[in-house]
C-alpha cells in the first residue's frame, strides 16, 4: 500500500476529468499517477519476459509504448489490468496497490473484488477488437455498464448511442460485429471502452489489424480522445501516431525499458543503438 493519500487525490482529479472532459489536459497532468506499474517482473515458465519495468501514467497523460515484436509490450499492458499476474512488482491504480497472496510462481491477487474494481475503471482496447460476437454493437457497448456498473438499460442505451455516434458509427447500433468492417469494429470497441467512463485506457496495437485506409478512422478517434485529456497507454507500431499524441514515449527492448522521454527527444535524438536501429527499421513502414 503505497502513497494512499496522494493516490486518492489522483482518483478524485480523474473523476472530475472524465465528467468534464473539456478540462485542460495541462492542468490534469500535474496530478499524481492514475496507474503505476512498479518494477514488474513477469515469467512465462523459465522465460523472463519483463525484467523490472516501471511505468507511471499521470492523469491526462498519454504514454506510447513502442518496441520490436516479442519485447513484452502486450504482456506489460496485460499486467496493468491483471490479465497476467506479475511474479514480482506492484500494480498501483488510483493510489491503491493490488494486494497479493503467495509469492513467486503461485502469486495471485488477494482479492478478486479488488481486481474487478481495477478492471471496471481501466478499459482495454484489443488488437483484434474482441467485440462479443453474439451481441449487437449497441449491446456490446451497454453490456458492462449494465452488468458491472449497474446502470439501468435505457440510461446505458442512451449513452451507448451517443458514444457510437461520437466514434462515427451511430448508424450501426443494431448490426452485429461480424457485419462491420475492421475499422468500424475497432471504433465500436473504443465506444465500449468509453462507456465504462474509465479513469485510464489501455490500447494494444489498436490499428495493427487494419488496412491503412481504415487505420486513419481509428487514429482520428484516438487523437480526439488524447485532446480530451484522457489518460491512455497505447502500444503501437505506428510511430507517427506515437509522435502526434504521446506525452511520453517508452521504448521497450527484451523486457527492459531501453529509453524513455518526450517524443521529440526519443524520436529526434535517440541515445541507444537499439532504438536507432528500431526507428530505422520502422521508418520505412511508418
Amino acid at each position, binding site marked *: 500500500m503505497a502513497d494512499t493519500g496522494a493516490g486518492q487525490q489522483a482518483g478524485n482529479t480523474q473523476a472530475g476529468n472524465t465528467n468534464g472532459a473539456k478540462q485542460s489536459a495541462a492542468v490534469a497532468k500535474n496530478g499524481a499517477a492514475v496507474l503505476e506499474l512498479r518494477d514488474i517482473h513477469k515469467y512465462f515458465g523459465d522465460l523472463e519476459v519483463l525484467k523490472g519495468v516501471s511505468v507511471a501514467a499521470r492523469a491526462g497523460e498519454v504514454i506510447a509504448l513502442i518496441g520490436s515484436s516479442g519485447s513484452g509490450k502486450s504482456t506489460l499492458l496485460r499486467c496493468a489490468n491483471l490479465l497476467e499476474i506479475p511474479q514480482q512488482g506492484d500494480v498501483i491504480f488510483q493510489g491503491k496497490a493490488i494486494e497479493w497472496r503467495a509469492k513467486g510462481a503461485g502469486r495471485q491477487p488477494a482479492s478478486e473484488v479488488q481486481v474487478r474494481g481495477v478492471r471496471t475503471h481501466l*478499459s482495454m482496447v484489443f488488437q483484434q477488437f474482441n467485440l462479443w*460476437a453474439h451481441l449487437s454493437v449497441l449491446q456490446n457497448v451497454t453490456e458492462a455498464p449494465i*452488468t*458491472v456498473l449497474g446502470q439501468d438499460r435505457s440510461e446505458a442505451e442512451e449513452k451507448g448511442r451517443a458514444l457510437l455516434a461520437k466514434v462515427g458509427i451511430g448508424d450501426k447500433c443494431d448490426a*452485429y460485429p*461480424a457485419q462491420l468492417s475492421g475499422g468500424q469494429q475497432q471504433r465500436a470497441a473504443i465506444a465500449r471502452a468509453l462507456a*465504462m467512463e474509465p479513469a485510464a485506457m489501455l490500447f494494444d496495437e489498436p490499428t495493427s489489424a487494419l488496412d491503412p485506409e481504415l487505420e486513419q478512422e481509428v487514429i482520428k478517434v484516438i487523437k480526439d480522445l488524447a485532446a480530451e485529456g484522457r489518460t491512455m497507454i497505447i502500444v503501437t507500431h505506428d510511430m507517427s501516431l506515437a509522435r502526434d499524441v504521446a506525452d511520453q514515449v517508452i521504448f521497450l527492448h527484451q523486457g527492459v525499458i531501453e529509453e524513455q522521454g518526450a517524443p521529440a527527444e526519443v524520436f529526434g535524438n535517440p541515445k541507444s543503438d537499439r532504438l536507432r536501429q528500431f526507428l530505422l527499421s520502422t521508418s520505412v513502414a511508418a
Partner: protein
Amino acid sequence: MTAGLTAGLMSIDLMTTGLSTSGLLTNRYWFKVLFEYCADPDSLSSLSWLSCYLTTVKHQSLYWSILTVLILLAVTAPMAVGLGLAGALARRSPFGAVRGLGWGYTSMVRGIPDLIFFLFVPLAIDQMLEYIRHRVLCPQETGPVWVGHDFVVCDAAKLPLGPSPEWVHDIYGFMLAVLAFSIVFGAFCANVIHGAMNAVPRAQLETARAYGLSPRQVMFRIHLPQTWIYALPGLSNVWMILIKATPLLFLMGVEDIVYWAKELGGSKSARFSDFPHGDWRIYYFSGLLVFYLLFTWFSQIGLKRLTDRVSRGQATLAGGKGGLGR
C-alpha cells in the same frame, strides 16, 4: 421435471372425468364406443365399417400411445438439455468432487450401451425408491429386503400401491421411462454442450473479464449464450436420435405405437373381434414410417429456423446467410 409430469397427470384426469360422465367406460380406463351405429358391425357398409374399425377401444389405445410418445419427447427434451447443461457445467466446476461427478456421468453413459441403461435405470430407480420407503414407512420390519433372489418390501412401500388403479401403474412406469430417457440423452447433451463450450474463443471470455465481469457473469452473459451457437447442430442431432429411440419405450413396459401397430396389424379372426381381417401389419408399419418421417422432417425445418436465429449475424458459415452480404 415435476411440473411436466404433473401436467401429464392432470390432462389424464381431465380425460377420465370428461368421458366417465357418459357411463360407457371400458376396462381400459376411459375409452368407449364412439358411434352408436357401430353396435352391429355386420350391418355396415365399407366406409362406416372403417370408421367403426378405427375407433375401437384398441385403436384408441394406439392413438393414446402416439400422445404418450409426444409427451415423452416434450418432457425428455428439456430435461435432457437441463441435465446436459448441468453435466457440462459440473465438468468446469472449481470443486474437484463436482468435476468428478460431471465427468463420471458423461463418460459412464458414453461407455455403456443405451439399451442397458434403458433396462437398468427404471429398475434401479424403482428399487431405490421402494427401499427408501420400506425403511421409512415400515420401521418394524428390520430384516433384509433381499429374500433369496427376490426384492421384497412391505406393502406400504410398494410403488405404486397395490390397490391403485391401472392407470396409476402406467403413469408410474411412464415416469420411470422418462427418467431413463432423460438421463441417457442428458449425457449426450452434456458431451455436445461441453464441446461447444470449449469452442467459444478464449478472447471473448478474456475480454469480458477485462471489463470487470465476475466469473459467474462471464459464464451466463458471454460464455453460455455463445455456446448455443456451437451446440445447436449437435443438439439437433441428439433430438433426431431421441425421436428415433422412442420405440425403445416398449422395452420399459410402456405400450408404445410400435407395440400397438404390431398388435392391431396382426390378422384377426371373427372369433376374437367384431372386425375380422387378414395380416394388415404392412399397412400399420407403413403408417409408422410415414409418422416418423414426417416428424423428423418437420423437426428438421424447425431446428433449421432455430439455428438461423441463433447464428444470425455471426461470423460463422451459418451466420453469413443472415444478410452479411460480403
